[in-house]
């Protein structure tokens, strides 16, 4: 596997309509749509957001499993899907690596056959060498003749990862791949994945609704809510400078208040809140300046609260 400089950019829309259960509520159709756009390079990018907000649907659209209604998907500058140009490259030609939450290892094939499945056109000696290399890398040595039913969840997911890496994908999509595993196994697999990403820097999108996982894995984080992108940036940007109230909420900020700016200078801002009174805060040097009278939302991290006994 050579080092890749593959980039992924896309802008996708999908309108899902389904009949709502109660007609009494007025409308007989309700819907959910996904409308998301961002670009990423070889960084490990995490798609983070609560369940049911369209993260998996996004991966399905990017890989071609689900056809978007509108938009484009560009891998390495080349359109693999473009609704206006009528381009829709078949899934098999997109060279997408994909890990499913439920592993999707082929139950009727051995570990060896699973890993070799996507490269069966190569000469036999090459297949063998490659599978052996991946067995070694994924700590699966000695299991090559087992069937998936004889493996643990973590082993199954490692087989799935080896199977996908064998085909040298251009991009790698992971749909909550470790959520069905217990804590220790999950930690080990996360570490494995990061090591592998270091060795083969493939453009990677990792879906999770687990805050800790997002923090550990994501060099870049896209926060998704209700089919929309709330924020996209580096881990530091997203975690320490959330752009919206929702992002702050998803990132575990519990104390979120609304207020009005009383006064501001380059370094501090004074905020007025009915419950807290006047609050003085430091302004991040890169933050845009605040203006007096502006309505804002602010959060207080519990670890930064200090209680001082005033005598």
């Amino acid at each position: 596997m050579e080092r890749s400089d593959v980039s992924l950019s896309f802008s996708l829309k999908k309108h899902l309509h389904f009949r709502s259960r109660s007609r009494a509520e007025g409308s007989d159709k309700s819907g959910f749509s996904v409308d998301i756009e961002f670009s990423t390079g070889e960084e490990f990018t995490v798609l983070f957001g609560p369940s049911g907000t369209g993260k998996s649907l996004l991966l399905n659209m990017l890989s071609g499993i689900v056809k978007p209604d509108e938009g484009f998907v560009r891998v390495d500058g080349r359109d693999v899907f473009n609704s206006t140009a009528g381009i829709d490259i078949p899934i098999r030609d997109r060279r997408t690596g994909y890990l499913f939450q439920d592993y999707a290892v082929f139950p009727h094939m051995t570990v060896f056959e699973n890993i070799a499945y996507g490269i069966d056109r190569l000469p036999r000696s090459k297949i063998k060498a490659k599978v052996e290399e991946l067995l070694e890398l994924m700590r699966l040595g000695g299991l090559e003749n087992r069937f998936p039913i004889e493996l643990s969840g973590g082993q199954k997911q490692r087989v799935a990862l080896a199977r996908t890496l064998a085909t040298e994908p251009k991009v790698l999509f992971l749909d909550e791949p470790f959520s069905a595993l217990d804590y220790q196994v999950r930690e080990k697999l996360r570490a494995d994945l990061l090591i592998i990403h270091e060795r083969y820097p493939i453009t990677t999108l990792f879906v999770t609704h687990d805050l800790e996982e997002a923090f550990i894995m994501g060099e870049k984080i896209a926060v998704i809510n209700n089919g929309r992108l709330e924020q996209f940036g580096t881990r530091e940007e997203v975690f320490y400078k959330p752009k919206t109230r929702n992002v702050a909420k998803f990132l575990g900020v519990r104390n979120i208040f609304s207020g009005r700016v009383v006064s501001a200078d380059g370094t501090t801002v004074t905020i007025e809140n009915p419950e807290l009174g006047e609050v003085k805060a430091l302004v991040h040097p890169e933050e845009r300046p605040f203006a007096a009278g502006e309505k804002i939302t602010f959060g207080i991290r519990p670890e930064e609260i200090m209680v001082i006994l005033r005598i």
Partner: protein
Amino acid sequence: MDIFPLYLTLKVSVTATFFSVIIGLGLAYLMARKGFWGKGVLDALIMQPLVIPPTVLGYYLLVLLGRSGPLGRFFEDKLGVSIVFTWKGAVIAAFVASLPLFVRPARAAIEGVDRNLENAARLLGKTEWEVLKTITIPLAWRGIAAGSVMAFARATGEFGATLMVAGNIPGLTQTLPIAIYDAVQMGNTKMANILVGIITLFSFSVLYFVNRFTRGRY
């Protein structure tokens, strides 16, 4: 003892099962994996032979395939083959009667294959045909095998529709079930007993093997 009915029954049911499996597999896949206009109607049509009386089924086939029927005339004029009152008529009767018994378990088995396994195969670079050949059919094979056996059993036992379409011509279209009916009518109890014994043994082994097929590892 005349073994012709036994030979004919085997020939007819093997041929009919062959067509049931080939055509039925396509239909089962279509029903399990695709959505299309008129799917419900097609489904009801395929399943008809399970519920309508065999003689009614036979009558429809007779009208359709007879010398003056639309399909019958086509075969007669264009291909020079006549269907009714020949062993070919018996094959068609057995095929139509056995098709639903194949399609039902085959469809259920294909529906039971996790779609993500098929998607995983596509993502690994496989064509639709390769996915079908290496994932869908191998994982659905128990249902397909069970359906084939059921279809074969149904084809072997086919009586009403066969009698209508192929008639009861000894040495030409007289299958085993019809020969049993004939033997009883003629008061040939010994013959009837032997033939009934053969059919019973056969049906029992079929069910035994179906049960064995439906057990499995994954």
